[in-house]
C-alpha cells in the first residue's frame, strides 16, 4: 500500500438532499440526446440525417479534426431532431428510442490479438474513445499520442455526487476488464486513487494491474486533477489521460460483450429533489423522463446535469451529459433579501468565511440556492482562494495572467495542471463574485489556439 496523501485545503459543501442508497426509478429511454458540447473543443461532423435509423453503437457524428473519433448512439431507434444554436452550432442530436435492443456487434480483440492498436481501433469504432480525456486541457484524448500514464479517481468528494461503490455495484469484473485494457495504452500504468477512509468500498482496492494511491481530505481531493498534482504533476509537453471510473466499466463491458452499453445508475439529488435517490437510465437521458423526482412546488428550480459546482444547467427540456452520473436540483435564488448582507445571523445561509456562524455548526446542511449573494467586484481578498485549492499553484496570479492573456505566464503559473472543476471552489468562496471557471475556460481555449 502506497502512502496516504492527506490534503487539508478544500471544503465539503454542506448542501441538503444527498441521495439515499436506493433505486427509485428505472427509466426506459424515450428520447435521448448526444451533445457535442459535452466535449471541449470538439467540432462535430454529422454522419446521420433526421429520420435515419440507428442501432446502439451506430455512429452519429465524428470529430472533424480527427474523423476516426466517432460518437455513437446510446440506444437503437431513429434520429428525431438535430438541434442547432447560434451560427448553426450543433447542440444536440436527439434520438427516439424504439427499445428493440438492437445493437452493433463490435469485433473485440481477445487473447493474443489484444495490442495497443487493436484496442484503440475498437474504442474509436464503438464511440467509447471520447470517454478518455487528456490533460492538459481536458479535451478528448489524441489517439496518436502515448500518454505518460492514465489516472482514475475512485474517490468522490464533489457535493451530492453519486457514490461510486453503490452505482458500480456488481460491475467489478467489467471495471477490471476496462482497467486491463487501459493499461495497454500507456507505459506509465493505470493509477487508481481511493478514499483512504473508505478504501474497502465496492472492493475497489482489489483490482489487479493498477497502481493505487490513497487520498484523504475534503473536496476537491476527489478531483483527478488534484490527485495528479500530488502523484505526478503535469509539466509542459507532457500528456496524461484521465477516465471516469463508471466509464471504465463501460469500456470493460465493450471488451467483454462486444456492445456499446451506456446504461448507468445516476443520483438525483439536491434541495429540490423529491426523495433524493438513484435512477437506472442511460447516457443522454431526458430530464423530462425523470421529472417526477423534481419538486416544482416551491417555485423556480434549476436542473443541473452534474454537480452544483461545475455542472451544466440543462432545464427540464434538457438531457444528461455524457460524463455525468448526477442530476442536481436547486431552488433558484431570484429573490430580494432586505439588509441580508448586514444581518448578523442569517442562520439559513452557508459561508466558508467566518463572518457568518455556519462554520460553528459543522453538522448542519443547507438549502442552498442560486443567488449570487452579492455583486461582482475586483479581486480584493486574495488569500481565500488558496484555502480551497490543494495544489502548488498561486491561483490569483494564474487567473490574472489568464485575464491578461499572457501565455508564458500562464504556462509558468500552472495552466497545464488545472481544468475548471479544480478551481470551482475558488469561485464558490470568492467574495468578489468573479466567474473564475469562465476565466479558466478562456485561458484553456487560448492555450489550445496558441499552442496548436
Amino acid at each position: 500500500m502506497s502512502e496516504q496523501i492527506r490534503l487539508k485545503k478544500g471544503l465539503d459543501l454542506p448542501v441538503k438532499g444527498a441521495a439515499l442508497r436506493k433505486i427509485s426509478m428505472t427509466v426506459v429511454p424515450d428520447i435521448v440526446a448526444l451533445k457535442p458540447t459535452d466535449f471541449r473543443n470538439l467540432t462535430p461532423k454529422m454522419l446521420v440525417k433526421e429520420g435515419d435509423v440507428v442501432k446502439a453503437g451506430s455512429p452519429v457524428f465524428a470529430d472533424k479534426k480527427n474523423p476516426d473519433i466517432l460518437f455513437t448512439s446510446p440506444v437503437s431507434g431513429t434520429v428525431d431532431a438535430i438541434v442547432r444554436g447560434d451560427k448553426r452550432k450543433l447542440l444536440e442530436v436527439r434520438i427516439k428510442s424504439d427499445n428493440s435492443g438492437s445493437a452493433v456487434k463490435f469485433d473485440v480483440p481477445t487473447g493474443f490479438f489484444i495490442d495497443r492498436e487493436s484496442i484503440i481501433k475498437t474504442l474509436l469504432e464503438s464511440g467509447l474513445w471520447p470517454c478518455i480525456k487528456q490533460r492538459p486541457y481536458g479535451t478528448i484524448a489524441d489517439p496518436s499520442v502515448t500518454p505518460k500514464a492514465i489516472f482514475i479517481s475512485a474517490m468522490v468528494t464533489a457535493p451530492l455526487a453519486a457514490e461510486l461503490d453503490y452505482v458500480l455495484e456488481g460491475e467489478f469484473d467489467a471495471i477490471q476488464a476496462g482497467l486491463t485494457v487501459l493499461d495497454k495504452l500507456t507505459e506509465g500504468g493505470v493509477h487508481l486513487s481511493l478514499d483512504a477512509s473508505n478504501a474497502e468500498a465496492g472492493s475497489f482496492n482489489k483490482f489487479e494491474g493498477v497502481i493505487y494511491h490513497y487520498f484523504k481530505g475534503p473536496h476537491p481531493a476527489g478531483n483527478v486533477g488534484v490527485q495528479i498534482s500530488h502523484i505526478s504533476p503535469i509539466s509542459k509537453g507532457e500528456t496524461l489521460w484521465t477516465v471516469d471510473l463508471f466509464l471504465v466499466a463501460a469500456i470493460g463491458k465493450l471488451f467483454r460483450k462486444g456492445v456499446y452499453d451506456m446504461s448507468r445508475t445516476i443520483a438525483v439529488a439536491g434541495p429540490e429533489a423529491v426523495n433524493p435517490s438513484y435512477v437506472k437510465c442511460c447516457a443522454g437521458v431526458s430530464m423530462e423522463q425523470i421529472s417526477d423526482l423534481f419538486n416544482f412546488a416551491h417555485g423556480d428550480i434549476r436542473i443541473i446535469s452534474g454537480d452544483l459546482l461545475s455542472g451544466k444547467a440543462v432545464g427540464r427540456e434538457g438531457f444528461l451529459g455524457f460524463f455525468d452520473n448526477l442530476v442536481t436540483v436547486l431552488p433558484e435564488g431570484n429573490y430580494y433579501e432586505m439588509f441580508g448582507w448586514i444581518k448578523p445571523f442569517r442562520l439559513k445561509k452557508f459561508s466558508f468565511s467566518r463572518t457568518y456562524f455556519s462554520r460553528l455548526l459543522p453538522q448542519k446542511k443547507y438549502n442552498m440556492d442560486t443567488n449570487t449573494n452579492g455583486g461582482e467586484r475586483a479581486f480584493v481578498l486574495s488569500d481565500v482562494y488558496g484555502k480551497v485549492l490543494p495544489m502548488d499553484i498561486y491561483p490569483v496570479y494564474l487567473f490574472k495572467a489568464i485575464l491578461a492573456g499572457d501565455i508564458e505566464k500562464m504556462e509558468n503559473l500552472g495552466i497545464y495542471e488545472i481544468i475548471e472543476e479544480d478551481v470551482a471552489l475558488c469561485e464558490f468562496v470568492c467574495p468578489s463574485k468573479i466567474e473564475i471557471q469562465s476565466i479558466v475556460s478562456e485561458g484553456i481555449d487560448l492555450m489550445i489556439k496558441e499552442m496548436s
Partner: protein
Amino acid sequence: MSKLRKLTDKIKPAFEKGGKLSFLYSTFEAFESFLFVPNRVTRSGVHVRDSVDLKRVMTAVMIALVPTLLFGIYNIGYQHDLASNAGMEFWEMVWFGFLKILPLYLVSYIVGLGIEFASAQLRGHEVNEGYLVTGMIIPLIVPITTPLWMLALAVAFAVIIGKEIFGGTGMNIWNPALVARAFLFFAYPSHMSGDKVWVAGVDGFSGATPLAQTSEGLSSLHYSVSDMFFGFIPGSVGETSTLAILLGAAFLIYTGIGSWKIMLSTVVGGLVMGFIANLAAPSYDCAMAIPAWYHLIMGGFAFGAVFMATDPVTSAQTEFGKWIYGFLIGVLAVIIRLFNPGYPEGMMLAILLMNTFAPLIDHIVVGRNIKRRLKRAKTV
C-alpha cells in the same frame, strides 16, 4: 413583499437603460443593493455561491474598528478634561469627544463617498464598498484638531490619486487611508505633529505624545505603561488604546479577514529592531535605549499593524510573502522612529514603503513557484 421593495421596483425602470435617470444607475444600484441583497442568480460556473460578499467583509472590518473608535471618542474628552482642568463627568467627556469627531466623519464620508459614487457613475460600475472602511479609518489616524478643509483635501487626494486612478478598490498600490495621512503630513506638517495638535478645545496646550517624549530617552516619559496600554495618552484618535486595538485584532483574526501572519510578523519585526537598538544604544537614557516592547504600545504601531498593514489589497498576497512584508514593516517603523531627527512616528512611512515593495516580495515568492515548475519540467 415589503412596501419598500414595491417602491424600489416602481422607481427602478427610470434608472435602467433608456430610463430618464439612467445616468444615475450606479447610484441607484448602490442604494438598492444596500437595502436588499439583489435577486441576481448565477449564470455560468458554480451554481451556488458563498453567502459572503464584499459588503459583509467591509462591515466586519468596521465592527473591528468600533472599540478603537469608542475609546477614541472617550479619550478626546478625557485629554480635554486633563488639559483644561474642567472636571468633566464620564458622559460629558464622551459627549465632548463625540461632538469633536462627528465633523471629521461627516467630511470623510461625504467627500470620499461623493467621489466614489461619481467615479463609479463615470465608469458605469457598481459602487465599491471599500471606502466604507477607509472613511472610517481616516478620522482615527489624524489629530483631532485637524482642520476640516485640510481633511477634505486629503480625502479627495487619497480617493482620486490613491485609488481611483488605479482603477478603484482592488487595484490600488497604497493603502488609501495612509495616502490621506501622508498627504496631510507632508502638506501641513505643523498641523500633524508636534506638541500642540493632540488635544481638542484647549488652544496652545502643549501635550506631547509618549513617542515624542521618549525621543529624549526613557526618563523624559511621563506616562505609565498601563496608561499607554489602555490608551489614556494623547495621540491620533484611534491609535492610543492598545487594548481596544487588540479587541479589533481578535475579531479580524477570528473572521480570517485580517492576516494574523502580518500582524505577528510586524510585531516581531518591531521587537527585533527594538532589541538591536537597545544593544547598540550609546547611553542608558536615550531614544535607542527604550525597551523594545514600548514601541508596540506607543504611537500608531499597534493600529498600523492590525488595521493598515493587513489591508488585503496593498499588502503582500502570498502566504510566505506576508511574513517578510510584516517583518520589514516592524523593522522599518522602529528604524524611522529612532533614527529620523524630524518626526517621532514611523509606522505610516513604513507601511507605505512596504506597500510599494509588496509586489516585489510577491514576485520573488511566486518566482520560486515558477522555478520549481520549470525544474520539474526539465528533470522529467
